[in-house]
């Protein structure tokens, strides 16, 4: 795609700017849709209807109206907040989660930047989110926000370990960090997907990755950084208006990013489940988004079913359950790859 645009436009910087905007065309409508979708899913799980009025059909315009409202809100910064950090934090958070989209393979034909360390890049760049959350919590000068930020930092850093370990299992098989290469390695019918390969090790890896990714994006049952009933709002307690919307947007962007990685690593990415049938660049994008949305649905489903863990139990799950199991997975996959190349 970069080559094509270079040919048409001839100006390199313009091409890069365009390439940077392309994921935005997905992220913003996705966030608007996902918020509405989550409301509807939660409502139907809870014997309610959810938004029904705005826009006519099942309140489809509700989140658009909400965003418009948030944009119009007064821009409040607490009197004793660290103004610079407070203003900067939402953008750092969003930059961290948006930057991941550069290396996500949306289709065989489109990937923002086809670098051969794509997976490594995504894992490292999304860690910047932690810095943003800490900034937000500290700058608010609110003890509850600080608690939220400290919890978020501790949680995300701890859960990065099982995430990386479970990803390593896939990397060991394919032998590369290149996400397109990982996709191609899973081509063919759905039993070629890594989740069904090297049973049960990769299945376990997929499970560990999914659970840890829930913690990475602060979803229930690991949503303790913003646990409403304990910390009021966590790190975004003091945020309102557009800045709150930015934090919210990056949360949903993150949700899709981790789902996309799960789909790519374990569920064939843009590969069609039926081998050659229904494949191609456009169908690839369709399958990729469907798989991502399926994971988003599971995330929402869990959120509206399960209670929340306590902070020490959360650490227990990471360090004493997920990490030992991911070592088992790595060992198992390692021996398997070594013995039957």
């Amino acid at each position, binding site marked *: 795609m970069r080559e094509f645009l270079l040919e048409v436009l001839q100006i390199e910087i313009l091409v890069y700017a365009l390439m940077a905007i392309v994921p935005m065309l997905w992220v913003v409508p996705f966030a608007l849709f996902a918020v509405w979708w989550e409301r509807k899913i*939660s409502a139907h*799980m*809870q*014997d*309610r209807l959810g938004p029904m009025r705005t826009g006519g059909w099942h309140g489809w315009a509700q989140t658009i109206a909400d965003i418009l409202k948030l944009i119009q809100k007064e821009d409040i910064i607490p009197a*004793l907040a660290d103004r610079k950090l407070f203003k900067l934090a939402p953008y750092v958070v969003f930059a961290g989660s948006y930057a991941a989209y550069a290396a996500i393979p949306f289709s065989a034909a489109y990937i923002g930047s086809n670098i051969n360390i794509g997976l490594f890049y995504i894992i490292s760049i999304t860690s910047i989110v932690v810095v943003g959350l800490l900034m937000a919590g500290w700058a608010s*000068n609110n*003890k*509850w926000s600080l*608690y939220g930020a400290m919890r978020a930092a501790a949680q995300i850093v701890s859960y990065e370990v099982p995430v990386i370990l479970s990803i390593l299992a896939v990397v060991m098989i394919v032998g590369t960090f290149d996400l397109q290469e990982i996709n191609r390695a899973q081509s063919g019918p759905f039993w070629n997907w890594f989740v069904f390969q090297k049973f049960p090790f990769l299945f376990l890896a997929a499970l560990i990755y999914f659970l840890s990714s829930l913690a990475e994006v602060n979803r*229930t*049952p690991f*949503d*303790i950084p913003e*646990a*409403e*009933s*304990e*910390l*009021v709002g966590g790190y975004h307690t003091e945020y309102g208006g557009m800045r709150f919307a930015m934090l919210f947007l990056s949360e949903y962007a993150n949700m899709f990013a981790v789902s996309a990685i799960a789909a790519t690593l374990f569920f064939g990415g843009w590969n069609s489940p039926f081998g050659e049938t229904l494949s191609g660049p456009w169908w690839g994008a369709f399958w990729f988004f469907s798989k991502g949305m399926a994971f988003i649905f599971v995330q929402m489903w869990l959120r*509206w*079913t*399960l*209670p*929340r*863990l*306590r*902070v*020490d*139990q959360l650490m227990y799950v990471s360090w004493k359950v997920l990490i030992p199991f991911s070592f088992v997975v790595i060992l198992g996959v390692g021996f398997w790859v070594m013995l039957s190349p």
Partner: protein
Amino acid sequence: MEHAATQMSGYVSRPATIPGLGRQLREHEMVISMGPQHPSTHGVLRLELVVDGEVVVDVIPHLGYLHRCFEKHCEHMSNYQQVIPYADRMDYVAAMSNEFGYAVACEKLFKIEVPERVEYIRVIMAEFSRIVSHLIAIGTYGMDIGAFTPFLYCMRDREHVLDIFEQTCGARLLYNYMWVGGLSHDVPPDFADKVKAFCKYFRPNIKELNDLLSHNKIFIDRTANVGVLPPEVAINYACSGPVLRGSGVKWDLRKNDPYSVYDRFDFEIPVGTGKVGTVGDCWDRYMVRVREMEQSVNIIEQAIDQLPSGDVRAAVPKRIRPERGEVYVRTETPKGELGYYIVSDGTPSPYRVKVKSPCFVNLSALPAMSRGAMIADIVAILGSIDIVLGEVDR
């Protein structure tokens, strides 16, 4: 500005002695204010937490944000009857139970016998309000732990009870239904069918609630062995209701000191057994409420079958002058032992009405339960006490 920052920021160590704690803060401690606008203090309670990281060193409750001078108001009513709407507003999620206690106390003071039908309808209503109150307690407790969906399931079931209340007396929250010497209205003609239909509908929903929340692994992890209140401590604090029974003490005024017609029904008193943790932990208190709802359904079914016909008002004069004297009546509300102490000086209005509030007493055991717990546990413990600030502050 610089000065204000030093004072307002909790990150700066304060030299002053903390009132209620009796000492200065240690270097690694900080004071954090939970409430009165915190989402899980169940109203306008303020807890001053002395925390060491996530661990709570001490809890200092601050009450009184919802003080409405209930007791003083009572002294200035022109008769005893006018107190009832105020009594409604104490424990506003179980208003029928408040009225019940007050009506029984007044009738004891006036030496009035009420018709049997009244007693049965009162019992049905009080048990319904127990179900409503426990549904809210359980639902919000789930929300405190982070599960949102059970709350709406509970609210859905509560709606059916409120519909019955509305059909009976027109009000859904604050009823003014149980009058001194009777009831404001008789029940509607299809009352018995509605009540039976509800009982049939509600029983499976308790099981659903257990499947969804009570036996959830995460929920048990969060509540078992948390906020343990040993039976002797519970007794020393004069706790009552599910908080006392959760600690394994079989004490229910409906059995131990029967009032109205409670001695005619067959029901059990659920107590905490420490099934998933220690006796007297949060899960036990929670489970006592769930099982009490089943027992309430039992009582309602028995009462509706035995419901006699007749009048719903005893012949009580409009302006009644009781003899000089005093009376203390205690009843078992959903929250515990609600006591009314009424002093009469022979005039038509009460000389003094004093309320012994179960929520207030149970809340006093909070610091004892929560020392050494984590911040998330404070929310769990507070939710398991099930306070209504309207009754704590009155």
